[in-house]
């Protein structure tokens, strides 16, 4: 699954740790989602969408991650 987390985060000048703190997850989790190594659960995906104020489908789109990661999930 592709996502625009990195772009949205950069627009707000938030670090991965900032996003992690706001959502109550680890920085490693945000990094893994951004790099496409991990697809978040639906509740976490909705939390991310709520945090950035965008609809879910505008943040996450189907298809392989840009770097070809998360194969096999």
């Amino acid at each position: 699954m592709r996502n625009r987390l990195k772009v949205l985060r950069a627009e707000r000048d938030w670090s991965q740790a900032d996003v992690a703190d706001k959502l109550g997850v680890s920085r490693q989790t945000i990094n893994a989602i951004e790099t496409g190594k991990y697809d978040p659960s639906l509740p976490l995906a909705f939390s991310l969408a709520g945090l950035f104020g965008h609809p879910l489908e505008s943040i996450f789109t189907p298809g392989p991650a840009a770097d070809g990661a998360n194969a096999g999930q």
Partner: protein
Amino acid sequence: MSSKPARFMSEDAVIITLGVSWLVLYLGVRFFLEANPGLEHGVRLGLAFVPTPVFALFLWKFVKGIRTADELERRIQLEALAVAFPLGLLLLTTLGLVQRAVELNFQDWSYNHVWPYFWFFYLVGLWIARKRYT
């Protein structure tokens, strides 16, 4: 394991401390039993169970830690255990077969020496899983 802000002693540190405490207690009891073969049977048996409550506490904190961890950490722990459990099973069943095929030296392959492999398998699984997601 936990992603919460650090407190006086984080949950991870508590879990590791309990694990190390169990190990120290286990080794202490083991060497004491080996050094004192003349102890009464009941005392020896009682001493053998001394490390058990500490391990039970470790297990409780470990499971609690996994329950409160975030979703990626839970997945990592699951994958680590998914590697460790079958490998442990493979080790025990293979040793059982080898023991039937040939005489294994008790000093090399008794319960006293096989259990560290389970920790090793878990750490290998943890390393693989963390590498996958970082």
